[in-house]
């Protein structure tokens, strides 16, 4: 018996070559880590590796094992932990978008977490709410487990792990009976173009980072008789200054957005910003920890192959996870570009008054260092109840058709508001919904819901905006475009936009987040977020009285600002003596 088993084992060893390769002899490996010689085909794709006929061999075979319903079985043999995280991630469920949409459409009073895509899969179309139908038809094309094969005229998205990790597609060539398969290449060096498949709409950070602004749609200039600067079939862009991290270092999305931030931390999160791990300070004012404490950092560094694992690496402030490409190098902080391992020195947060003064301690970095923010005003949602439109979840046409109209676009010096993190952040419309529903001969306008949202626009520049750009700019304050002035009776403001005569169902200018008295005209979908209140508006504008003359941080009044203020109040400064006569 013993000998028999040994012989069987020996035979098995000798015949360990999978029968798959009898036909697919010309198949390449996915990468060095997944070598076809050592791993074979069946460990990832299933099927019967010892079968002698095609039919038998292909039983239970999976073309794309990285789809999340298969990944746990196949990829999960080695990558169990990460797949669990990805399954819970917000890029899979898209619940962040759906739940906010329901809130904006006034279907829920408070944002609560839904099951996202999975929940709607099980819900019959006829039972879907307006927001759910809108989500299914206009938003749900993008999620990492989308079926790649349904895309005909748009860039395919989805497919599970490959949605992000695939860097070269499969190529199959047949010549008679011989089939040559070039296996898709997967990598942890995810090119930004993969991220941009989805991250190019809504707040448009994916475009802004690369200095592209979705334009008004003129397609100008006309080059060789064609509309130019196309994003896709019907969207166009023009060039604006890109983010400094792109222009200076050519950094990709993944150079900042870490593994945990993107693939999740194993918890279900309500919003994208909760899932996010990194912040500016993680690189520009880092906390270093010995890399030996973080086996995952060593693994990621080895996988990358171009980035040496330093002794001390940066750790995120928010979730305490390692950034294996940000390291201590003598006195300096360096970042390695994941694409090719190129090393850059990171400038350290300076000690100057502008970063240290108490008066600005509530500001998020993006409040001052963002050059522009993509702003899309007015989102007119038109719904044809009797029409039909493709449902990206059910993968067929269902009843109800949407059309989106808008009021106007701007790229502008960002308006500011208190953001989701209670810090002062750039803000722009997000979204200003008005609705029209056509049903039979009837037209109704069931609701409107005008909201702003705060985000980092990803248009970072080294030089910050000037003092006046915040302290005496009605747009920055959230009042909108118009004439801001100050007189004895306080702040006065004359807006340009006339919403009422423009046919909008609102009593305030479309670009007014607040009134000059801090009344909140438009809402936010986040608990902590709001426009400035009366006290804040007055305080910001009040400071301008000093800023007119003391408009630069190297001005001596900022050396000891507290003392300077005291002196002014006691009329001891030259200007107080002269101006307050």
């Amino acid at each position, binding site marked *: 018996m013993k000998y028999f088993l040994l012989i069987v084992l020996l035979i098995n060893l000798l015949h360990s070559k999978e029968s798959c390769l009898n036909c697919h002899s010309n198949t390449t490996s996915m990468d060095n880590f997944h070598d076809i010689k050592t791993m074979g085909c069946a460990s990832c794709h299933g099927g019967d590796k010892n079968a002698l006929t095609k039919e038998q061999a292909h039983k239970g075979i999976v073309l794309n094992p990285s789809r999340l319903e298969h990944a746990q079985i196949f990829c999960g043999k080695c990558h169990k932990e990460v797949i669990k995280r990805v399954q819970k991630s917000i890029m899979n469920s898209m619940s962040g978008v759906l739940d906010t949409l329901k809130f904006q459409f006034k279907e829920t009073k408070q944002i609560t977490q839904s099951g996202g895509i999975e929940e709607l899969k099980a819900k019959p179309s006829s039972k879907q709410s307006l927001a759910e139908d809108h989500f299914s038809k206009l938003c749900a094309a993008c999620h990492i487990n989308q079926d790649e094969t349904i895309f005909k005229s748009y860039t395919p998205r989805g497919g599970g792990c490959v949605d992000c990790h695939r860097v070269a597609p499969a190529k199959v060539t047949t010549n008679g009976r011989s089939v040559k398969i070039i296996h898709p290449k997967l990598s942890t060096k995810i090119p930004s173009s993969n991220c941009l498949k989805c991250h190019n709409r809504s707040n448009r950070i994916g475009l802004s980072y690369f200095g592209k602004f979705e334009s008004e749609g*003129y397609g100008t200039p006309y080059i060789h008789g064609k509309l130019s600067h196309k994003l896709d079939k019907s969207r166009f862009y023009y060039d604006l200054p890109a983010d400094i991290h792109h222009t200076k270092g050519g950094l990709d999305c993944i150079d900042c957005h870490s593994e945990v931030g993107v693939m999740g931390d194993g918890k279900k999160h309500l919003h994208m910003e909760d899932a996010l791990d990194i912040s500016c300070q993680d690189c520009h004012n880092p906390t270093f920890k010995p890399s030996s404490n973080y086996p995952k950092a060593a693994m990621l560094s080895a996988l990358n192959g171009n980035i040496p694992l330093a002794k001390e690496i940066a750790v995120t402030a928010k979730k305490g996870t390692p950034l294996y490409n940000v390291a201590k190098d003598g006195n300096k902080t360096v970042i390695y570009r994941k694409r090719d391992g190129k090393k850059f020195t990171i400038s350290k947060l300076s000690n100057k008054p502008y970063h240290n003064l108490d008066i600005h301690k509530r500001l998020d970095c993006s409040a001052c260092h963002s050059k522009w923010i993509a702003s899309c005003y007015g989102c007119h949602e038109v719904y044809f109840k009797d029409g039909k439109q493709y449902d990206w979840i059910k993968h067929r046409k269902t009843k109800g058709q949407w059309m989106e109209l808008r009021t106007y676009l701007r790229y502008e010096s960002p308006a500011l508001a208190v953001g989701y993190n209670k810090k002062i952040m750039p803000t722009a419309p997000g979204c200003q919904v*008005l609705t029209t529903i056509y049903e039979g001969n009837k037209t109704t*306008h069931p609701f409107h819901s005008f909201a702003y949202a705060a985000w980092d626009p990803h248009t970072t520049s080294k030089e910050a905006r000037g003092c006046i750009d915040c302290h005496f700019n009605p747009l920055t304050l959230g009042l909108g475009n118009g004439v801001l002035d100050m007189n004895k009776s306080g702040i006065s403001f004359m807006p*340009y936009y*006339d919403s009422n005569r423009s046919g909008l169902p609102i009593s305030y200018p479309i670009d007014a987040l607040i009134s000059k008295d801090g009344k909140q005209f438009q809402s936010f979908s986040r608990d902590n977020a709001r426009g400035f209140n009366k006290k804040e508006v007055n305080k910001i504008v009040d400071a301008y*009285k000093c800023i007119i003359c003391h408009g630069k941080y190297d001005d001596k009044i900022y050396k000891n600002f507290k003392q300077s203020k005291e002196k002014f109040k006691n009329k001891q400064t030259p200007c107080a003596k002269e101006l307050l006569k």
Partner: protein
Amino acid sequence: MRNIIKLIILSTILLTTTDANECTKCHINKMQQCKTNVHFTLKKAINTTRKTFGIKDSNVTLQTLPKPPKTVKKPKDLVDDILRRKCLRCHLTSQTVNPTKNLCLACHNPHSNKADSFKAKPSQEKCLKCHNGEFIGTDYLGKFPHDYDKSYRSPIDKDGFYPNAKDGIDYHFLAQDIHHQKGLTCISCHNKEGGKNWLKPKCTSCHQSLSPNNHKSDHSRLSCTSCHASWMVNSYNLNIFRDDTPSYRQWRRLTMQFDPKLEQFLVNALKAKTPPPPKMVDYLDNIEKRGIWYSGWKFKRWENFLLVNSKDGKIELAKPMFQYKISYKDSNSTMVLDNISQVNGKKIEAFLVKHPHTITKKPKSCEQCHNNPTLFDKTQINKTLFQGKLIDATVLTKEQLEKMQSRKYKQERAKTLLK
């Protein structure tokens, strides 16, 4: 009985009044006056456009405008064509603005107009038939043209219709001119046709006493509009493209071209099974000719403004005009001109002094000029907007800019705010 006969004769006259002669029976002097009038000759618009296309010392009128040359090699070979088929859609006897064919009725209301109680004064509605869209005119009512793409036909009104686009475009409504709010119409200021005040009425002829507190001597060179015009229609980079081939598909979202006739043609052409040949009417001889003139902007803004020194020594507002990028594809699909923005080796891009009719009592704040980003922010985001040359004006000098941010200004401003 006599009265009835009179009435019949009168009504037949009125019904058959199709040419100016009917009016000139009584108003013979006026007719002579009209022939030298800018509205009749359109001299300024025609010759400034021809000049930007590189035709030197151009001095033609609507009546003497030559026919475009048959072969096109340079942008200037296209200028008379674009004038005839695009710009001159508006002229006194143009079918689209004045279907009566009666020269006078283009502006003057006929005596039968009951609403006007038998007065022949031009109504505002008549003026705005031409003076609309990108131009000074409809801005008086606060109107700012929407963008062309079909996603800008918003908001839908309560009955389910798109906004009114009679001019060939629909509008945003911004702050209206105070004179409009108070009930004045165009001719309240632009009165006495041909007279001194007609083309350029002076604010000071009505507003004779200005408060000395608010009108300091430092600002004596400023025109009234530089401060009191609240916003203006700035449309950047006019891309124009004549296509002699029937390639309509790429314009499917851009059929609204600020030209109702062209819009209708494009809508029909896109629906047709066999696309019709590209044709557009010459508004001077009313003959359809080969080719479609498409146009599009880079973008439009109302909040930007540029201050310049005008040739008569005033500081004025200037707006982007004639920032052409010209393309021409002939019927063999050859790109004869491909996105040309230079004429005679020089960039065409130009700004023109304008007086936006968006006057408000409250002027701009000091900061809007003294810290105007378009004058002082030389970062990439703004500098691309104002590189153009100025027609009949010069940019503010370094000294002027320094003065605007001088210590004296700052102290003065601080003093008023700290009061």
